[in-house]
C-alpha cells in the first residue's frame, strides 16, 4: 500500500510526541481506542485562561496512519481556540493525509482524542474552581487535587 508523502512525513518525523502532567492546571487528557483493537491514542492539550490551546502532545499505539493522524491533530490544534478545535472532523484529517479507506478509523480516533481532551480539560476546570465558583460539580475527592493545582498555577504565573 502506498502512503502519501504527508502521512510518511508525520510518521517518520512525528511532531509533538510526549506527555504533560495530567494534573497540571489547564491540561486536558484524552485517551481513546483500545489495545485489543490495535489502536490507543493519548492526546493532551494545555489551555490558557482565555481558552486557547497553547500546546499539545500525543502518544500513540497504532499503525503508521494512527501515528500520523495524531501528529497532525496536535499540529493543527496548537494555537487554536478550544471551540474551534472541537469542530475538527475526521474527514479533514483523512483528506490531509490521503488515508486509504481501511485507515479511516485512524482519523476518527484522532477526532475523538481531540474531543476527549477538551472534555477532560473542561471537567478539570470545573473541579478546580469548584470551591468558589458555581460552574463546577464539586466532590470531596477533588479537594487535594485542587490545592495541588493552585500551586502549579502560581508557578505558571511566575513564568
Amino acid at each position, binding site marked *: 500500500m502506498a502512503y502519501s508523502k504527508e502521512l510518511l512525513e508525520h510518521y517518520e518525523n512525528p511532531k509533538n510526541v510526549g506527555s504533560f502532567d495530567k494534573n497540571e492546571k489547564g491540561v486536558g487528557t484524552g485517551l481513546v481506542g*483500545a489495545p*485489543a483493537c*490495535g489502536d*490507543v491514542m493519548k492526546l493532551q492539550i494545555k489551555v490558557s485562561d482565555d481558552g486557547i490551546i497553547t500546546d499539545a502532545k*500525543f502518544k500513540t499505539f*497504532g*499503525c*503508521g496512519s494512527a501515528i500520523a493522524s495524531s501528529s497532525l491533530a496536535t499540529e493543527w490544534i496548537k494555537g487554536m481556540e478550544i471551540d474551534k478545535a472541537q469542530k475538527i472532523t475526521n474527514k479533514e484529517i483523512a483528506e490531509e493525509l490521503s488515508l486509504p479507506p*481501511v485507515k479511516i478509523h485512524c482519523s476518527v*480516533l484522532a477526532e475523538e482524542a481531540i474531543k476527549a481532551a477538551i472534555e477532560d480539560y473542561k471537567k478539570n476546570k470545573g473541579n478546580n474552581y469548584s470551591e468558589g465558583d458555581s460552574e463546577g460539580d464539586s466532590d470531596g475527592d477533588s479537594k487535594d487535587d485542587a490545592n495541588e493545582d493552585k500551586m502549579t498555577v502560581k508557578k505558571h504565573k511566575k513564568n
Partner: protein
Amino acid sequence: MTVKLPIYLDYQSTTPIDPRVIDRIIDVMKNDYGNPHSRSHSYGWKAEELVEIARRQVAKLINADEKEIFFTSGATESNNLAIKGVAKFYATANKKHIITLTTEHKCVINSCRDLEQEGFKITFLPVQKNGLVDLNALENAITDETSLVSIMAVNNEIGVIQPLAEIGALCRKKGVYFHTDCAQAFGKIPLDVNKMNIDLMSISGHKIYGPKGIGALYIRRKPRVRIKSIFSGGGQERGIRSGTAPTQLIVGLGLASEIALNEMEQDYLHIKKLSKKFYDAVTALTHVYLNGDLEQRYLGNLNFSFAGIEGESMIMAIKDLAVSSGSACTSASLEPSYVLHALGVDDELAHTSIRFGFGRFTTEEEIDYAINLITKKVEKLRAMSPLWDMMQEGIDIKSINWKTH
C-alpha cells in the same frame, strides 16, 4: 560488506529460487519443451523421463515410493485434493467426520468449511498455549465416523512442529487416515512417511527454493488410500490430477528436493546459528515474546510480539526488512491473527506480532543489520506508545475500561 536492501526475511511466504534450480529450469524450457504425455515422439518421451526423475527425487526426500507422488499446482491444491478427495471417497462408507486444528493454513480450514456446507462434520481442535496439538484431545475426538485427521507439520505463522510420529501412530491405531500439510516442513526437517505413518502429504515447491506453481501430493499405496479427484480431464497423474504436467516446474521441484536432501544438515546448521543470534538479541530488548513453543520449532521462523508496539507501525519502521505481520491489520479486517488467537495470545499482544523468516541465502551481515535496526526502532516506537508508559508505571492495561470500537 554492504547488504542489499530491503533484506528478505519472509521465507515462510516464499523463498528465493536456488540459482542451480533456475539454470536447470531454463535449460528444460529451452530444450525439452515436449508434452510429457505425448507418446508418439521423442520430445514427449524425453519430457516424460524428466518428470519421472523428478518424481523419484521428491519421493526420496520423504522415503516414499515414486508411484505415490502426484504433481499438483502447489500445497493449496494438494490440501484441497487430499481433504475433499478423501472425505468424498469415504463418505459413502458413512465416514463423514474430519478432524483438523484451529491453527491450520486457510486452505485446510476453508476446505473443511466447504465440506461442512455439504453436510460433513468437522472438528476444529484447539491447540495448547505453545501451539501444539493435545494428543489426548485428538484421541478423544476420533470416532467411528472419522475418515481423516489433517494436521500440519510446521506452522506457517509461528513455526511450531507438530508431533507427526505420535499423531501418525495414533491415527494408525484408530484406523483413520492421516494427512499432513508439509508446505513449511518438506525439505527442511526430516520426514519419513513410513516411520511417521503418514497417509497423505502436501508438498510445495516455492518454499524450498524451487519455483512457484508446482507442488505434489503424496498418497499412500500400502495400505491404499483412495481419493475422489477434483479435476475432470485427460486423466494425467494416473487419474488423480488431470492437466498437462508442467515439465520445467516439475524438474525444478525435483532438483530443489534433491538439493534439500543433500544439504539439509548444512542448511539447518546455518539457520540455527542465525536464529540463535537473532533470538538472543531481540529478546534482550525485554517484553518481547516468542509465539509458539521454543523447542518444538523450525528455527527459520521466529514470530515475536513486541509489547507496546503495534505490528504495522513496526513494519513501517523497519521497512529495510521485508517481513510480515502476524496480525491481519494490513487487510481491511481489524482482527488479529487467528493463529495467535488460538494460542490464547491476548489481542493487544497479537496486534504487536511480527514474523521473521530466515533461510539458505540469509547472511550473518543481514542478521546484524536487522538486529541493529530493530533495536533502534523498538526504542523509538515505545517512546511514543501510551501502552508502554502504562506498563512502565506498573498499570495493568487490562484493568482499564477501554471502549472497544
